[in-house]
């Protein structure tokens, strides 16, 4: 779509990684929030979308913006919810993709949404349903800075990512029979609140901005193979200390960081720290090794 689109070799590698990561998360005990966040990130990295956002619907028909790659995307999604119009809403309501390669021609269809999107520099929107058979549970929305259709190949990748996430979400629901999607959504939303609280804790303790705090949180959860929401909860409750998330030498007196913190925890486990403190999480395999892991 633009010059930041990766080369085809890089792209193929990343594509494989993205699916491996998604599949890996689905095999393990996982967070819906984490899956959805991953999905928006991968769409931006793989598809040259400028931003991605995700809405889920509960069974009373109300929609919530649950994940987004950037704050801008989140605001655009919220804007659609507030004004009750926009491509993402249409996509969820119809269960069909809504592909708008040039937003400037769509002002009549969405008189509130289009000017707002254009104002934020977004000129195309591709909304894909999260759908399994007859059930539409939400939409994945890809925002582009240039007008133009998304290449067919990219659309296929986006659909495959969305389908994988959908199957994952609905699968957990099938496994835990009584837990209907709405309940999952509520749990996911409450996890979001906990994660925001945890970001605040880390931001203060480590002088990080909120994105860096989130990366530190996520890096820790990954390296300990624990649920993001569980880690966030333990941090907010004081079971885990902020220092355990921050690189050695990083203290609250250090100046604000200018570079992003990716994985402050080394991949190996330190004794006495990690999943063995997480009473409710089942033990996990230590590596994601090359041998295929059968689904439970």
């Amino acid at each position, binding site marked *: 779509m633009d010059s930041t689109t990766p080369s085809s070799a890089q792209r193929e590698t990343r594509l494989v990684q993205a699916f491996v990561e998604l599949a890996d998360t689905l095999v393990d005990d996982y967070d819906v929030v984490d899956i959805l966040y991953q999905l928006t990130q991968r769409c931006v990295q793989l598809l040259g979308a400028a931003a991605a956002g995700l809405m889920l619907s*509960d*069974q*009373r028909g109300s929609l*919530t*913006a*649950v994940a987004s790659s950037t704050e801008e995307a989140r605001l655009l999604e*919220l804007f659609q919810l507030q004004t009750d119009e926009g491509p993402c809403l249409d996509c969820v309501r119809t269960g069909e993709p809504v592909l708008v390669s040039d937003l400037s021609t769509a002002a009549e269809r969405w008189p509130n949404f289009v000017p707002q999107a254009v104002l934020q520099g977004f000129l195309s929107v591709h909304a894909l349903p999260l759908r399994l058979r007859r059930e539409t549970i939400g939409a994945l929305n890809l925002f582009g800075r240039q007008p133009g259709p998304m290449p067919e190949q990219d659309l296929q990748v986006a659909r495959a990512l969305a389908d994988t996430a959908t199957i994952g979400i609905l699968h957990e629901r099938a496994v835990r029979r*009584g*837990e*209907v*999607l*709405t*309940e999952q959504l*509520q*749990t996911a*939303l*409450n996890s*979001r*609140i*906990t994660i*925001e*609280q*945890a*970001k*605040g*804790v*880390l*931001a*203060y*303790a480590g002088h990080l901005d*909120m994105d860096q705090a989130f990366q530190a949180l996520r890096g820790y959860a990954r390296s300990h193979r624990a649920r993001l929401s569980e880690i*966030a*909860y333990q941090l*907010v*409750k*004081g079971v885990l200390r*902020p220092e355990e998330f921050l690189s050695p030498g990083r203290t609250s007196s250090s100046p604000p960081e200018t570079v992003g913190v990716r994985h402050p925890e080394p991949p190996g486990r330190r004794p006495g720290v990690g999943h063995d403190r997480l009473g*409710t999480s089942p033990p996990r395999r230590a590596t994601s090794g090359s041998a295929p892991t059968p689904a439970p």
Partner: protein
Amino acid sequence: MPDVAGPEELNRVRSTVMAALRDKADAAEAVKVVCLACVELLPVDGASISVMTDEQHRATVYASDEIVSRIENLQFSLGEGPCFEAFNTQRPVLVADLARALALAWPAFAEEMIEQPVAAIFAFPLQNGAINLGAMDLYRRLPGWLSPQEVALALALVDIATTALLVLQLRALDEDDGEGESWLVLSTERKQVHQATGILIAAFGIPAEQALARLRGYAFATGRLVDDVARDIVTRRIAPTELDQ
């Protein structure tokens, strides 16, 4: 779609609860409205709400009938049951047929239920992020699932009860600051309020509910909106030390 109560009914319940709180209702009066709404609007026979901090510290705030009251007491004396599971795992626990359920996390409680006219139990946590307030138990005499729409309705009612308990805990309606309970909306859209809560947790080493109370207290004392104060804390225009009491 099955006939499930719509937004009007929910709004009615919400305004009844909030009006009661403005009239200085206590927790029991406020959650009673929610429990009775559950019995009225959902295919359940009884509802109760308990507040707790752990298995040792808990109290039933309201129980709509004798049976659900017994359900609460049994869980409390055994130290196990669906309400503790919902509270501890932060997820609803939905058991549509107790007689056929396998691998329940609370075998002793399930055993006791055989003698009770209780065939299905649905327990929901009352929570706001990492602030855990308690749980709501619903039971029915006959086995059967709640439909997705009914679960959605139950969750909306749980949110009303949670808001009411938070209002009481934070004494948010004692002072009329013009915001009423609106800032307490349990929503991910108020991201910065949750982030600022986290910052205050780290800055003062206090639990989440106290951090939220402090945020709100400062906003009231300075005549500002909670959202605005939260934004200033997150963007570091206000240092947490300014909120020290």
